[in-house]
């Protein structure tokens, strides 16, 4: 009896750890492209850069109907420059995404993430007609967050 109890104690205190971080742990928001009220694939080339960083968030994307972008973790709003180029034209629009920053952790073993809630989106209107926030929660869920409606395509 005493031996079994000693074995039991040793087993208990020598238990190993398990690390179970979320596999899909990228936090980004998804913008979908619309024209005339329906989803469209952009035939032109779209490049998105963020003010305040040299990083190109979307580089010369072509034939896309949606894309995912990272959000800044400390700023209250991200200002993005959308550059669309086609045959004989080059247009710019600026989009400002205002949001909250909510730290999120799962375990000391897992990287800390920042979740967000989109509060408002503003833009200029050279080729963007309007912007609709469809899901303000930005977290691990890979769902459409913003609809970017272009002016009707010719």
């Amino acid at each position, binding site marked *: *009896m*005493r031996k*079994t*109890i000693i*074995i*039991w*104690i040793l*087993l*208990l*205190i*020598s*238990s*190993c*750890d*398990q*690390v179970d971080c979320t596999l899909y742990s990228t936090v980004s928001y998804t913008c979908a492209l619309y024209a005339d009220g329906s989803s469209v694939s952009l035939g032109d080339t779209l490049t998105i850069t*963020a003010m*305040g*960083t040299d*990083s190109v*968030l979307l580089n010369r994307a072509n034939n896309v109907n949606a894309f995912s972008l*990272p959000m*800044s*973790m*400390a*700023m209250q709003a991200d200002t993005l420059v959308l550059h669309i180029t086609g045959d004989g034209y080059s247009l710019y629009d600026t989009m400002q995404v205002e949001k909250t920053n*909510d*730290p*999120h*952790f*799962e*375990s*000391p*073993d*897992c*990287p*800390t993430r*920042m979740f967000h809630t989109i509060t408002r989106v503003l833009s200029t209107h050279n080729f963007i007609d309007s912007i609709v926030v469809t899901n303000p929660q930005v977290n691990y869920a890979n769902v459409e967050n913003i609809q970017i409606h272009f002016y009707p395509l010719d």
Partner: protein
Amino acid sequence: MPMSKTYRFISILWISLLGHPVAAQQPQATPQVTVETTNDTVKVSLQSLPPEKAPLLAGAAVSVDICGLAMKGVGAKFANMEAAARINFKEKYFPLFEIGLGDCTREGQENNNLFSTTAPYFRIGMDYNFNKKLNGNRFFGGLRYGFSAFKYDFSNPDFTDEVWQQPIPFNIKDHKARAQWAEVVIGVETKLWSIVRLGYNVRYRLRLSQSGNEWGDPWYVPGFGRNGGTTWGGTVNLTFDVGKSARNPRKESRK
């Protein structure tokens, strides 16, 4: 080996020990032999003892979990250090109260994250002794309700926005949280000597509710263990009987 697998192994080990002949270590009551001699015959009769009955209030006991203290002593990442008090009704029903101090300091394995908390916890519940014999051994099954209100710290000093190249040191200090859970307990206990008993049990814990997890679940809940919907645990109890019948329950039971 994952912790849950370890506990599963321990459970299997425990179940296999249920058949362990611990009862043989205790002195058994011998039936009374009567010999009657007549003219040319000898009549031997074996008179069995009346069934043993424990009194309604058969004693009380206090105990300490030596496993929790050992885990703290060897520097385990978390430890539930606890003591308990219980009352013995008819050697069958053992309502009890457990109080403990949960302690955890957990560093990330591949980063500088740090989670820490030290807080009390409480459990109430009852054990039922399945052993019908008053031989000093007890086979318990029981239920517990556990509760803890605690504060925890979490820090990630290296948290950085890699796209915008901004360091964002992340520190949560004294964040308040609460948790409630239920436990299903099975255990064994045997008498070592005099008023001293030794036993151990395995517990399956089911979290009922928690709050204070706006930024994420606390990694550890005092008294519950590693946080999650369910978890396994156990205690190794050194128990001291107190009260009138502590030294000789058999004698008390025959009154």
